[in-house]
């Protein structure tokens, strides 16, 4: 009996050839393409630009410039505000949809989940482009408002504003927010909610004291998956934002393009990653306070 158990112990019969073959593709991709490539960005951030691929010397000059030039503070702050607004708008509008899916959808749940995830798989560029034609001077919104007699003159006020960036990004990342919140709501034991109402809690009280706190891990996960891609976005500001809504991703892209100062662009990228790391840590800390179930 004991020999049989030993023979079945995991790993005991694993041929090393199998293990190597199974680990190799993932190891190559993760260590070379992700970790080594990110290490290169970190390395480059401490180099001086001399036009060569990896720069020259070692210095903190890039970070000194990032910290001392008010331009980078302004743009970083703007990126953070835009990303925070997008995250807030996305999560707040998604929450009721997730709530409906978890508690009221019944037989329509599968269909609704399907409809909500479908846009996730369509081209991000086309979704942003759609907003460009909606908001343009001779675009859909202006012409619709004039056709219906609400306005007599088209307005330039829609396109090329930070508000256009917020609306476009909130729309583009909307599908990201619903599913994590839905999963968190759906995994709340129904007995908890029943207990609250048995003990005399009104529906709103039981929502505020039981459902909402228990769904916070999902809300935080949703906030994170929306915040991270939006804070570094450069496509939406370029298409619908105009010069007043340059974001940090725009600057990084420019340093690796027209400006051609890769070490400085790398330093900007490191700065963005540090900001994101801080946000993730705050989210983790908050998650633990709510008692993560994820």
């Amino acid at each position, binding site marked *: 009996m004991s020999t049989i158990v030993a023979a079945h112990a*995991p*790993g005991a019969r694993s*041929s090393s050839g199998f*293990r190597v073959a*199974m*680990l190799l*593709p*993932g*190891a190559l*991709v*993760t260590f070379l*393409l*992700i970790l080594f*490539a*990110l290490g*290169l960005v970190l390395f*480059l951030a401490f180099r001086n630009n001399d036009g060569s*691929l*990896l720069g020259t010397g070692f210095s903190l000059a890039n970070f000194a410039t990032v910290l001392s030039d008010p331009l980078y503070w302004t743009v970083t702050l703007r990126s953070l505000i835009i990303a925070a607004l997008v995250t807030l708008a996305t999560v707040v509008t998604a929450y*009721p949809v997730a709530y*409906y899916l978890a508690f*009221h959808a019944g037989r329509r749940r599968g269909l*609704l989940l399907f*409809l909500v995830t*479908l*846009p996730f*798989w*369509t*081209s991000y*560029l*086309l*979704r942003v482009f*759609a*907003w460009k*034609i909606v908001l343009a001077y*001779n*675009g*859909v919104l*202006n*012409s619709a408002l004039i056709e219906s007699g609400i306005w007599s003159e088209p307005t330039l006020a829609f396109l090329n504003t930070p508000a256009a960036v917020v609306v476009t990004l909130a729309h583009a990342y909307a599908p990201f927010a619903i*599913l*994590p919140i839905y*999963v968190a709501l759906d995994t709340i034991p129904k007995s908890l909610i029943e207990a609250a109402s048995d003990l005399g809690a009104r*529906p709103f009280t039981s929502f505020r004291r039981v459902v909402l706190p228990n769904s916070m891990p*999902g809300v935080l*996960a949703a906030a*994170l*998956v929306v915040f*991270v*891609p939006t804070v*570094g*976005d*450069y*496509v939406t500001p370029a298409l619908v934002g105009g010069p007043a809504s340059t974001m940090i991703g725009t600057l*990084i892209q420019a340093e*690796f393009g027209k400006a051609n100062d890769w070490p400085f*662009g790398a330093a900007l*990228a490191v700065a963005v990653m540090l900001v*994101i790391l801080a946000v*993730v840590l705050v989210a983790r800390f908050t998650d633990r306070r709510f008692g993560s179930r994820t």
Partner: protein
Amino acid sequence: MSIAHTQGGGRWLGLYVIAYLVFLYLPVLLIPLFSFNNSIQAAFPLQGFTLQWYATLYGNTVLSGALVNSLVIATIAATGATLCGITVSYMDLYGRSPLAATISAVARLPILIPGVIVGISLLILINLIGLGPSRIAIVLGHILVALPTTVVIMRSRFAAIPKTIREAALDLGASDWTTFRRVMLPLSLPAIVSAFMLAFLISFDEFIVVFFLAGTEPTLPLYIWSQLRFPKSLPTVMALGTSILAASFVIAAIAEILRHRGLSATAPRPTDQSQAKQTKRGELQWHST
């Protein structure tokens, strides 16, 4: 009383969900609407039906070159990403080694990195190893971008296969390799197809990373981007966009159906509850990582 109250609340929520779905789909559906409109501008009132913008898509050699490029890159990148997703998640669940767990965690890391940083890090890497901006560079970039999706889909699929099935195969003397190839892979086939299709779509539509990695041969999103500068080509872009959206919707719909069918088909179901739990666990990992 309480039940009546929640039902009333449910009705209002239902209306909200409908409004939300309209908001989600309306801007995107404007692209097909105006692609059939006989005007160079996307504005009301509609000027009448035309197919001329679709006709301009034919015979455009730059466009067809970009299309072929995108199809080839997406096929290779999706194959690579699916292969990595299968092996990484299988070893994460059954390899029982810290290395396998680390690889699986790092493979899902790109979710927490903005695309622009993924793009520049790969740009530095491909120049360092002497590849330079090229189609191979794009394939590598897209394997990376699609990897979190394939890992999450395959991981939740493997986790939903009852442990006893794999153990039975090993007990009956099948080697690791045979168990993997003859038992675990066939059982997860719908998820593999789904992961491949979604990885294909991710690569086919990807713009943020490919922007840094493309050499002289653009992909379809890069072609669209280059056309956005010219107001004259707006209707052509809308016709092209409509075709891409239609193809994306069909592929994504099939992939989603396969993914859910795959999850429910072999999940253990002594009761409905445990089946739901399996699905949830998969979805949970998808979003909390």
